[in-house]
């Protein structure tokens, strides 16, 4: 009895109707497959009684807000983009500890959603939470590996009730549902992106400048790995990105000493994100990535490739 998408869709639509009743809901959309599937299920269950909100935290990938809006509108989902980046950066200022960073982000998200819910008259917040989010957030005897912004990062007090139709699913199952719902491939097969965004790819304190570096490096990793996969040089990894370490090291550029940041390239193979192994990327592809990152970003002086599996590491760095 492998996972049955049709049966799941039917049950999820009824359960959303049962929890929201004749009220209204807003849904937090990130442009990933989880929240996109949740949005389509909500549209089926509630029609126009659901409002889709994309929060631009300032910690998104290159062109993310524009891409997500266009991609979802092709899938028939209208999205409202709220620019909250100034609030996120100022709330995160000076904070280095990964768990506190995640809690600040979770809280910021909720404050934006509360405002949007009030405007729309919604009492419910729908989230695309999936199983690894609440598993890793701890509770019930489990250690907290990381507080996912949509679970462990939620503030104690919030003025909305939660509705999480995908709670028992894993990423590969959500993709099966996405395909069954007829979502375009650019959404159903999109690589995972963490809810806190680039914040968990900047080790230590977050600044708009560091966000710009890691955003540029992520774009290069995506471009190069996608191009190499198209040429058949490798199987596209399950997730692939760059992260920025606060450590600076010495280098030499044009006969001058440099002392610059370190970027980590990470690419992993997985099914459900619960376990992962580092991808075997051909050296010439890694070389191209490293050359582009150091040439295009003056602030980066060294590029490393992460060869750790999960466990003992996790996919993202924080």
């Amino acid at each position, binding site marked *: 009895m*492998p996972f049955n998408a049709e049966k799941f869709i039917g049950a999820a639509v009824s359960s959303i109707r049962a929890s929201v009743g004749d009220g209204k809901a807003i849904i937090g959309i990130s442009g990933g497959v989880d929240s996109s599937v949740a949005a389509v299920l909500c549209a089926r269950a509630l029609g126009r009684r659901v409002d889709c909100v994309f929060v631009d935290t300032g910690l998104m990938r290159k062109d993310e807000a524009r891409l997500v809006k266009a991609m979802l509108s092709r899938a028939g989902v209208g999205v409202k983009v709220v620019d909250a980046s100034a609030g996120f950066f100022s709330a995160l200022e000076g904070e280095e500890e990964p768990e506190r960073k995640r809690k600040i982000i979770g809280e910021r998200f909720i404050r934006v959603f509360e405002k949007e819910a009030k405007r729309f008259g919604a009492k419910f917040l729908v989230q695309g939470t999936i*199983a690894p989010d609440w598993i890793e957030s701890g509770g019930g005897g489990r250690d907290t590996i990381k507080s996912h912004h949509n679970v462990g990062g939620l503030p104690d007090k919030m003025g909305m009730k939660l509705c999480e139709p995908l709670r*028992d699913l894993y990423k590969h199952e959500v993709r099966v549902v996405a395909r069954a719902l007829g979502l375009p491939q650019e959404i159903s097969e999109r690589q995972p992106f963490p809810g806190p965004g680039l914040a968990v790819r900047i080790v230590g304190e977050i600044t708009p400048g560091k966000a710009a570096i890691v955003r540029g490096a992520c774009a290069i990793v995506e471009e190069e790995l996608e191009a190499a996969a198209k040429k058949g040089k490798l199987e596209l990894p399950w997730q692939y990105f760059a992260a920025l370490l606060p450590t600076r090291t010495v280098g030499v550029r044009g006969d001058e000493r440099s002392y610059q940041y370190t970027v980590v390239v990470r690419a992993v193979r997985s099914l459900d994100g*619960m*376990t992962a*192994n580092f991808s075997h990327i051909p050296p010439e592809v890694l070389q191209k990535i490293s050359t582009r990152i150091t040439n295009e970003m003056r602030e980066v002086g060294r590029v490393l490739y992460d060869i750790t*599996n*999960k*466990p003992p590491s996790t996919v993202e760095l924080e």
Partner: protein
Amino acid sequence: MILIVDMGSQYTHVIWRTCRDLGQEGRIVPKAVARAELDAADAVILSGGPSSVTKDDFHSLPGFIKTSGKPILGICLGHQLIAHTLGGKVVKGKNAEYGVSRVEVDRPGVLLEGLPASFNAWVSHFDEVQRMPAGFASLAHSDTCAHEAMECVGKKLFSVQFHPEVWHTENGERMLENFLRQV
């Protein structure tokens, strides 16, 4: 009904998912589950967890392991709990094992039936079973761990140190299928 006892593993829900994929209805229950509920199950799977068999309270589980006669599969901490409860010895290993480990099959027995002579399994532990309880057969080992799998077919007790439920463990589903066939 398969009862899956959650001892705090990251993978408890993945055990539930794998049982469902294999056509068996499972239900996750907390570690402090009542004996009567355990007795009503067709089989019990003990998950892994972050604690240690010598330090934590396992409520009615030791009594159930000793006397139930129901098929039980212990995974990671569950494997160690079966060994500890029945008089084996669980100690902190010389080396921890996290991530991939090469498991060499010494004898397939019931649990590893149909598996290749060696395979990659995913592990995440420091403690290990140093001495098995009487009546158990050791089925497999790795470089760092002498008893990666053991069973006592007469008592329907089976256990593994690695995690057969995760996708990265080769043939993991086959091992769970071999166990579920005992129900």
